[in-house]
């Protein structure tokens, strides 16, 4: 099912790759972080389409980060693809187990129960001195199917991997959202009772969506850990989860491309806010958020789709 969106995503991949390879190293690094976090936000988008917001995405993200870090330090695994597989396995398995409970809740109860679980992981990590408690620990330099890039080529390799995975993941989620199971999400948001009468288990659908969101966050976590080279419990803290919700609202849920676009804009905005107003950067970010909520309640993506509709007239 190669439709316009897939071609659009492919074009975006080419643009991102082109930009990333000629941009300065710091901008390329920022792009890696933005894409990795964009995947976590994409997971939130899947949930938000079903009317669910989670303040605990840091749980799945943190599991990915720590899976990558621990596999390197304790098992000697440095292959990026193996780390990705481990990260996905860790976050999805935990989501499968917790999903039996989480999928029974909706609205604020779902949001906060997610947060509660992420804070439990945070609490456990803080108590674990072998893992460096709040200081965390450094992640080993990754290899790629036997290829160990030089220090100079490492950034480019991680960037290439992140960009390609973002593209693949975006296409897969696009297909999923266009499938019957994908549309069930919107049906659950609108009227869960009817969904049940149609013969679909809403709980099961939410359970699956939760696991998809967890897998996406796990991938984002592994890629962040590889790129940054350090993991710490802050990655599971509720402020990190809050940041993902912030970006999700900033982006809007209009398209699978929105989280990546929103995430890139967020990282760029924040780094310049840091540079030009070191004392009031938080206030600047808050002001941007307020402006988006007031003038673009559908997120930044809605501005794009609105202008596109305008063209058609």
């Amino acid at each position, binding site marked *: 099912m190669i439709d316009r969106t897939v071609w659009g995503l492919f074009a975006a991949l080419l643009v991102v790759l082109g930009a990333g390879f000629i*941009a300065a190293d*710091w901008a390329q690094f920022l792009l890696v972080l933005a894409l990795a976090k964009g995947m976590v936000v994409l997971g939130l988008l899947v949930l938000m389409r079903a009317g669910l917001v989670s303040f605990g995405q840091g749980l799945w993200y943190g599991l990915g980060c720590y899976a990558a870090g621990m596999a390197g330090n304790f098992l000697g695994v440095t292959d990026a693809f193996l780390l990705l597989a481990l990260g996905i396995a860790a976050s999805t398995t935990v989501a499968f187990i917790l999903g039996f409970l989480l999928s029974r809740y909706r609205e604020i109860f779902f949001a906060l129960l997610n947060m509660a679980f992420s804070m439990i992981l945070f609490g456990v990590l803080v108590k674990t001195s072998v893992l460096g408690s709040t200081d965390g620990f*450094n992640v080993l330099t990754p290899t790629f199917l036997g290829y160990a890039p030089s220090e100079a080529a490492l950034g480019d390799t991680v960037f290439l991997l992140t960009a390609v995975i973002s593209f693949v993941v975006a296409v897969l989620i696009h297909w999923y959202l266009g499938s019957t199971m994908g549309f069930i999400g919107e049906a659950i948001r609108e009227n869960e009772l009817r969904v049940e009468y149609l013969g679909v288990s809403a709980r099961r659908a939410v359970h699956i969506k939760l696991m998809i969101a967890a897998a996406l966050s796990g991938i984002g976590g592994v890629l962040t850990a590889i790129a940054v080279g350090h993991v710490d419990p802050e990655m599971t803290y509720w402020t990190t989860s809050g940041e993902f919700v912030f970006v999700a609202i900033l982006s809007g849920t209009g398209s699978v491309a929105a989280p990546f676009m929103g995430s*890139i804009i967020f990282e760029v905005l924040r780094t310049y806010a840091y*540079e030009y107003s070191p004392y009031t950067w938080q206030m600047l970010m808050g002001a941007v958020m307020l402006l988006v909520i007031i003038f673009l309640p559908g997120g930044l993506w809605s501005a794009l789709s609105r202008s596109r509709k305008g063209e058609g007239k």
Partner: protein
Amino acid sequence: MAFAARCSAVMGSLATAAVLSASAICTPALAQDDTGPLRMGFVTFLSGGAAGPFGIPARNAAEMMIEAINAGEVPAPYNTPGIAGRQIEPVIIDEAGGATKQVAEFRNLVQRQNVDLVVGYISSGDCLAVPPVAEELQVLTVLFDCGTPRVFEEASYKYVFRTGAHAAMDNIAAARYLLDHMPDVKTVAGINQNYAWGQDSWADFTSVMKVLHPETEITTEQFPKIFAGQYGAEISALLVSGSDAVHSSLWGSDLEAFVLQGVARGLFDESQVVLTAGEPALPRLGRQIPDGVIVGARGPHGDLAPPSELNDWFRERFIAKYGDIPVYATYKAAQALLGVKAAYEKAAEAAGGFPTTDQVIAAFEHLEFVGPSGPVTMAIGNGHQAVQENAIGMTKYDEDLGRVTLTNITRYDQWCVNPPDGVSSVEWIKSGMPGAKCE
């Protein structure tokens, strides 16, 4: 990285181009020249809980020292203007936001803002996350305040130095001081924040006590969460334990809250309280902290600094400029900047011109220099980690000065409270601190 022309064409098609000018994102790092100002990134907490007690005082000290160094107004041997003749141009950024953010911002400092070196970092997490990136980017990085010994014990770095002693000596000195002044102490309790700093401080302190005074009994260990602010239950537990001494590494608003609540409930009368990082809170607590509390300053800083011309100059100038008592973070910031100046100038002398980074590193390793709190030696961590003496004192409210001072000061030689090079501090303490040189 390629050519700016090609770059801006592609960037123009990106959504982000609306936010940024394409040229800013694509400009490769400029070739560095040896005549312009020396651009120095300075990273410290400007927001959050660590900004008040550490971050802002450190920034103030850095600004004052950079101004004085540029003008050549620091007393000898630092009385030449600039660093090896070049003026310092600081770029100050906020340390808030966590290690992931700081790694990204470190890259931005080096690659976008083109700083020649970075001085900074109060959080131990940041001090662990940043050095591998400093190595990758090959930029001189000087850690000035963070405590964890793990930085140079778990890895070795070429481009990274720490001019402040690590945290093991805080608790070694505190335990020695407690035993010097209370030799018959039998029971010890602890209240420390539930994060790496609090856990490590308590582990170090109890290990030292077990080595130096094996009959010590640990009655209770309380780990409230950081920024808890309310210590009712913990203080009850400490009171019930009836311990001879209470150890705490609390800092900032947590420490102030604990002192106010603990004094009101008589904890400070019942037990000898030891505050290993208590010094920055003293000016704010004033009369509210009783006399006779054992207080450390993470080194011989502040009131614990030995008298010297440099110390007098530093204190007077700081008080005149900001109206505040200079607390330990200001001493550590000044120490880092003077260490940098000493290393660059030693290297410049050897090179006969402005030194390269490699020459500065060679000069910095095993460097001995003097800060406002006395001599500092880059003796451990293969010459990248500083050691210095430590001093501990007791609070005493001085009516004439109208502030809390530290008296009964005992000084501990740098080799009495620091492990030898190449030995992990935890292992060194557990094995009974062999080779410790205490008078």
